[in-house]
């Protein structure tokens, strides 16, 4: 590729941005050419989002210049950025779930007929856009919220491309909630756009996807530019080392730890589900996990992993079967009762069901412990601080103080705060639903190691992840789900392809 100046869509030079107490970006350069997919990588808190926010006019840089199509610009606001042809599709979808798909796509430019919206034309137009741009065939008159997150994401992309006619498209972790199939669909759209000259900035945590789709890779760490390479000339291992700033030999050690621990697994089950199920939610299944064991739940998106977790934790009532904790039948299914029985769930959706964002780190950590003790047995602030400090140290949570609102922490640290909340109740069974989603490689490894060390202490852990490799690495046993049904159970040493076949079993 020749470095023709005219190819440049975006050029950011020497961008610096600081927040009180943090240098979020320090003299970072970044550019985007026409017709390329440029991956932007870095850990949580590395400065990726800050850089994107500068480019999209959400934040104003302290220093540095931005050139767009060769001319220096000052981007005043997100609207201004959009007018300039820079569109962003965020990880959290910012469309209206209570409007129809067609309305979401065409909002603001609905086709009119005699002063009122021409619904027929609008639906037809939206339908046509989805087919043409994404090759998707869905009912555009249904409410957006009735579709899966994956489809909502696609609709957001369709809107950005078609309506805002973007030349620069920023995809902020677009694939984190997509199935493999949908990801491929998205990639084919990205390739098509690339061939049409659109520049795409692709932010993700999935390294494999970066290699599949991107032309160049820029790595940021601690607010500094680490490197910018052609994807083809950057070996995977080297990339990971760049991202986490240290060697990853430790990852290989985990297999060994796991094997050693297998001897410590107790004979009796601490959690035992028999024929447990709920109509139209999850098929009845048997499941058990023992002290000192990590049980993995594997399956595709929508296979019933989360549903199983919610049932075991008592968010939902089963309508068949029994659940025993420590040999005793569970009669009342509620989170409160589960906490009393020593069952903890770190939920899949951190933002929605995990963190209480305006409360402090301290309060977030003691929340479940306090609710387990009831209203009146108040844990006073001194004790709260002590407990919070202990877990901040134990889990290596990066926060300026225990009294910091948890929303000011990075995603990885928020996840650790939720883990701390559940570890604080000293659970017997810990259910972790996607504890590493949206988290950088370094923190990911930390959490995986933590899972193993918890089992080593004798806790029973149920580990759920959509990354099969991770499930295999951490679990002694793996239960495979497909179409809301348990389809198999394997030892943790099983070859990956055996599981993949099982997972894909009923998917045609």
């Amino acid at each position, binding site marked *: 590729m020749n470095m023709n100046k005219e190819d440049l869509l975006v050029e950011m030079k020497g961008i610096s941005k600081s927040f009180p107490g943090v240098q979020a970006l320090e003299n970072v350069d970044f550019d985007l050419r026409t017709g390329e997919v440029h991956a932007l990588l870095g850990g949580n808190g590395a400065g990726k989002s800050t850089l994107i926010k500068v480019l999209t006019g959400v934040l104003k840089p302290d220093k540095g210049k931005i050139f767009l199509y060769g001319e220096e610009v000052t981007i005043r606001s997100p609207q201004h950025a959009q007018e300039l042809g820079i569109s962003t599709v965020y990880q959290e979808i910012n469309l209206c779930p209570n409007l129809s798909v067609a309305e979401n796509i065409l909002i603001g430019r609905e086709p009119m007929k005699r002063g009122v919206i021409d619904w027929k034309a609008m639906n037809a137009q939206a339908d046509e856009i989805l087919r043409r741009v994404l090759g998707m065939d869905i009912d555009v008159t249904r409410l957006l919220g009735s579709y899966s997150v994956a489809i909502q994401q696609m609709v957001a992309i369709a809107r950005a491309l078609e309506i805002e006619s973007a030349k620069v498209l920023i995809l902020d972790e677009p694939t984190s909630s997509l199935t493999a199939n949908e990801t491929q669909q998205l990639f084919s759209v990205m390739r098509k756009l690339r061939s049409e000259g659109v520049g795409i900035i692709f932010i993700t945590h999935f390294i494999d996807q970066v290699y599949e789709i991107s032309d160049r890779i820029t790595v940021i760490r601690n607010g500094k530019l680490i490197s910018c390479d052609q994807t083809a000339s950057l070996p995977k291992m080297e990339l990971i080392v760049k991202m986490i700033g240290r060697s990853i030999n430790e990852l290989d050690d985990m297999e060994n730890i796991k094997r050693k621990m297998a001897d410590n697994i107790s004979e009796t089950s601490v959690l035992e589900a028999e024929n447990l199920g709920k109509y139209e939610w999850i098929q009845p299944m048997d499941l058990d996990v023992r002290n000192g064991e990590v049980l993995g739940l594997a399956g595709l998106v929508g296979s019933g992993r989360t549903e199983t977790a919610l049932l075991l*934790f008592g968010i939902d009532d089963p309508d068949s079967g029994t659940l025993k904790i420590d040999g005793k039948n569970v009669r009342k299914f509620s989170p*409160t009762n589960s906490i009393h029985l020593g069952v903890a769930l770190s939920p899949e959706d951190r933002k929605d069901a*995990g963190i209480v964002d305006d409360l402090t780190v301290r309060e977030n950590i003691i929340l479940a412990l306090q609710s387990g003790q009831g209203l009146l047995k108040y844990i006073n602030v001194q004790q709260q601080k002590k407990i919070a400090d202990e877990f901040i140290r134990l889990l290596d949570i990066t926060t300026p103080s225990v009294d910091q609102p948890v929303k000011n922490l990075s995603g990885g640290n928020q996840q650790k705060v939720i883990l701390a909340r559940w570890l604080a109740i000293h659970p017997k069974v810990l259910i972790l639903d996607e504890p590493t989603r949206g988290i950088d490689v370094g923190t990911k490894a930390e959490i995986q190691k933590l899972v193993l060390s918890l089992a080593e202490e004798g806790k029973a852990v149920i580990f759920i992840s959509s990354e099969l490799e991770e499930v295999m690495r951490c679990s002694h046993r793996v239960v495979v789900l497909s179409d809301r049904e348990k389809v198999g159970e394997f030892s943790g040493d099983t070859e990956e392809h055996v599981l993949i076949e099982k997972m894909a079993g009923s998917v045609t």
Partner: protein
Amino acid sequence: MKKKSMSETFRRLTESRIFLPILALLIILLFDAIFIPEFFKIQVRGGDLYGRVIDIMRNASTVMVLAIGMTLVIATGGIDLSVGAVMAIASSVAAIMMNPTIIGVELPPNLLAFINDPNFTYSPLWEVILVTLAVSIVCGLWNGLLVAYMDIQAMVATLILMIAGRGIAQLITNGVRIQIFYEPYSFIGQGWILLPFSLYIVAILFLITWLITRKTAIGMFIESVGINPKASHYSGIKEKRIKLLAYTFCGFCAGLAGLIASSNIKTSDAFNIGKTIELDAILAVVIGGTSMSGGRFSLPASLIGALVIQAITTTMYALGVPAFALQAIKGLVVVFVILLYSEPVRVLLNKVTSEKGRPL
């Protein structure tokens, strides 16, 4: 070194939750000090204190009582529009218990003669207060059940009682305004022990509520439910029960405010007692910095919010603003106060204070 720690204290002060409400109140009082002669003059009459400032506090006491309950409801992410109507119900219940002849209770002739006597009451005072508060608690419970367990939006659920409540209040008294002659009852709103008696009610209510919310886990649970009900549920907090508790308590506060208001005007007036006062209570909470979407709350800040509203009204009266212009001018002042809270003004304010706080 000393200077730095001083600017640090100053910064902490300006970031504190209660700073803006106090600033707003101070601005109004400063205005009063300049433009209204003898505004701060306090007289001693018969061992009690009188003056405009004391008037402000006394007149604000009903809104302060309501604001305490409203703060907790708003912190859970809800709202209670029915407090004014519950005040009317409370005043009707209290009046009918002291003088039940209106609903056909026959008094023996020897008692009937005393019906207008300042020392006569049909039911003893403690019974009147207890039953009135119990009825108000039931009203709050009703709101709480609709919001927490029936999943009805708070504004709709409490709107029901807001509309029906005044009707209920009239049904209780057969549609009649009952005069209250019993003197000890009047002491609730008009009594004076150095300071107006109603201020002691506010103080005790505040103290108890503050202790309950900050020395048990209730305060944190209320905030947690207001910020993220789903995450709270997942953390084992019984979020429905927390909401029920908040609405029930708000009903109790409304009953208390009803007692104060009716003893103040010596009538049960189902139409006018607490009319549009729910809006003042909500405004007080908002001026106190609690977000309407729920979450973090501060009881002292809400009390100051109530004082701000009353200070505005009293100032207008003192300046001789005609009654018909009062609402409009009050609105203008409230807009000014609320502007203090807006993001752009906050940023500006922070800039000014941080420059001043910088060591020379």
